[in-house]
C-alpha cells in the first residue's frame, strides 16, 4: 500500500518558507495557495514576476519561489506596468490589499485600467487595513467598527463601501473582472477558476484582468476564525456579491464594450 500526496505545500513554496507572519485564521495564505496552484497548473510560475503592495498580503514574498518586487504602498500597478511594458513575455501580476489597491493605490489602479495594461491583479479584500491594526478601509462595511471608526462606519462621515470588481468592469481596458471568496471549499474552487481565467487573459494579451477575493481577518473583525467565515457568508457577500462582472476575449470586443 503506497500513498500519493493529495495536499501539502504548493510546489513553488520555498523549503522552508519564510517565517509565516499570519494571524490565526487569516485567509490570505489560502488565496496565496490558490495563486500558487494556478501558476503551477498553467506552467507560468517560471516566467512570472509578482509585484506585491504594502500590507498583510505582501508577506507572501518570502514564502513562494517567484521573482517578487515589493513596491511602494499603492503603486504595485505602476511598477508592474513598467515591468510588463519592458518585458512583455513575463507574466506580471500584482498581489494587493483593498487599502493598497483601491485606497492609496486608486490612481495607479485606474491608470492601469485606462491604459488596458496586460497585467493581472489579485486584490485581497478583508474590509480593513490589517497590518496597521484594523483601520477603516474603502471596503469597510457600513456600521463596521474599526480602529478609526470606533462607533461603526457612518455613511455621513466615511461614505460607502467601494465595489472594486464592479468598478473595474466599467473600464474598456479591463478584459476580465470577478469577485470570489474562500469561506467555503466550493468558493475556493470558484475563485481558483476566476484567477485562472484572469491569467489566461494576460497570456492571450487581451487586457487588464482583476480578481477581488474576500478574506477573513479574525483579530481585526474581533471574531473567532470560524465566525469570520459565517460573517463572510452573510453580511459581506450581501454587500459584495460574488461572480464575474466582465469577461471579454479580444481587444476588438474591448474597444466596442460599453
Amino acid at each position, binding site marked *: 500500500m503506497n500513498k500519493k500526496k493529495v495536499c501539502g505545500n504548493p510546489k513553488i513554496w520555498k523549503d522552508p518558507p519564510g517565517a509565516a507572519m499570519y494571524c490565526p485564521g487569516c485567509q490570505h495564505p489560502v488565496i496565496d495557495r490558490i495563486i500558487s496552484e494556478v501558476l503551477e497548473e498553467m506552467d507560468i510560475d517560471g516566467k512570472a514576476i509578482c509585484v506585491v503592495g504594502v500590507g498583510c498580503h505582501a508577506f507572501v514574498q518570502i514564502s513562494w*519561489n517567484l521573482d517578487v518586487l515589493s513596491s511602494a504602498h499603492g503603486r504595485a500597478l505602476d511598477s508592474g506596468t*513598467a515591468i510588463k511594458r519592458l518585458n512583455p513575455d513575463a507574466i506580471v501580476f500584482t498581489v494587493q490589499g483593498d487599502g493598497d489597491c483601491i485606497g492609496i493605490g486608486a490612481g*495607479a489602479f485606474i491608470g492601469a485600467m485606462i*491604459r488596458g495594461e496586460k497585467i493581472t491583479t489579485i486584490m485581497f479584500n478583508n474590509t480593513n487595513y490589517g497590518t496597521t491594526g484594523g483601520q477603516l478601509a474603502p471596503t469597510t462595511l457600513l456600521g463596521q467598527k474599526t480602529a478609526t471608526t470606533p462607533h461603526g462606519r457612518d455613511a455621513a462621515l466615511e461614505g460607502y463601501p467601494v465595489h472594486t470588481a464592479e468598478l473595474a468592469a466599467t473600464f474598456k481596458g479591463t478584459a476580465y473582472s470577478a469577485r470570489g471568496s474562500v469561506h467555503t471549499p466550493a468558493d475556493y474552487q470558484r475563485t481558483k477558476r476566476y484567477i485562472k481565467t484572469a491569467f489566461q487573459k494576460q497570456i492571450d494579451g487581451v487586457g487588464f484582468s482583476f480578481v477581488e477575493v474576500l478574506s477573513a481577518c479574525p483579530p481585526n473583525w474581533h471574531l473567532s476564525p470560524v465566525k469570520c467565515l459565517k460573517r463572510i457568508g452573510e453580511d459581506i457577500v450581501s454587500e459584495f456579491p460574488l461572480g464575474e462582472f466582465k469577461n471579454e476575449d479580444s481587444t476588438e470586443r474591448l474597444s466596442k464594450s460599453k
Partner: protein
Amino acid sequence: MAEKMFVQGNEAVGWGALYCGCDGFFGYPITPQNEVTQWFAHEFPKRGKVFLQSQSEVGSINMLFGGAAAGFRVMTSTSGPGWGLMQETISHLVAAELPCVIVLVQRGGPGAGSIRHAQMDYITATRGGGQGGYKNIVLAPGSVQEVHDLIQLGFHLADKYRNPLVILTDGILGQVSESVEVKTIDFGPLDKKPWALRGRERQEDGKSRIVNSAVGVLPLPPYPNYISWLKHIEEKYREMEGSELRYEIYQAEGADLILVAYGYTSRVSKEAVNMARAEGHKVGMIRPITLWPFPYSVIREKAMLGCKFLVVEDSLGLLIDDVKIGVEGRADVHLVGILDRHIPTDGGMIMPGRVFEEIKRLL
C-alpha cells in the same frame, strides 16, 4: 560616429539617453520640461523602445521603480511640483538599490511658483527630499552639450552604484538651443544586473529573487538585519563621495574673488568673469558639475588663500549654504540671487551685467 545637431537642452536629454542604451522613459506633462516627454513620445516607440505617459508623477517614478527592478535602463523627467510627488519613491529606489535617472528641469517655487526657469530645488535634490535621509549623485550640466554628456554619465554612475541619480537643469538650459555632438560615450561594458527580476526560469542560476525597500521589516541576504544593511548603504555613499566629485575651475589662479554657480547662472557668471578680467580684476569661478558630492575642499583651499566668494544662483539662497560649509567661516560669502533679476517677474533672469556690478562692489 558622431552627429552634429542644433537642439534644445530638453531634447538633448533624449539624444543622450538614446545613445547610451536607455530602454524606457516614463513621464508626465509639466512645464518647462514638456519637450523632453514629447521627444521620447516621437523617438522611442519607432525604435522599439518604451515610452509611456503615466497618470501622475507618482506613477512615473514608480514605473521607474518597476523598470529598474527588472534590470532595464529607465528614466523620467519632471519639474517642481512633479519632483515633489516623486520624493517617497526616490527614497525607495535608494533603499532597494535600484539604478535610474531623474531629470529635474527646475522652475520657480514654492508651490506652483512659476512655469519659467529658476534654481530653487537645490536642497531637495542634494539632501534627499524623501523619507529617511539618503544620498544620490546630482549632476548639473552647464550647456546643451553637457546635458547630452551627463545623461550618459548619469546612467553609468547609477548602474555603478545601484542608486538613483538626478540631472539638475533649469527652464533656460532646457529651452535654449545650442549645437551638440551626439555620440555614444564609452564607459565600458554594461552591468549584467544579476540581481534583477526576470522570472525564475530566466535567471542564470534558476533561483528566484526579491527586490524590496522595506529592509528593516524583511531583511534580505546578504544583510541579516537593518543596521548591517544601513552600514552597506553608508559605505556606498562614502565611495560615491570619494570617487565621483567633478567640478570646473575657470580663471581662478591668483583670484581675489571666486564666483560659485551651476546651470544657466554659471554661463552668466563666466560672462561676468570675462568682463571683470577685461578690466584687470582678478576674478575666477568654480562650477560644481556634481552638486552631490559637493567640491567643499577646493572651495576651502581658495578660502584659506584669502579669497572672497560670490554665489550666483537663481533662488533666495540654497547653494550658498554649501559654499559656507566649504569656506568654514574663513571668508565672506555674498549672493546674487533671484531678487537681483533684470526684471522682477517670472520671466526675469540674472544678467552678467548685474553680477559684474556686484563683483566691482565687492573688490
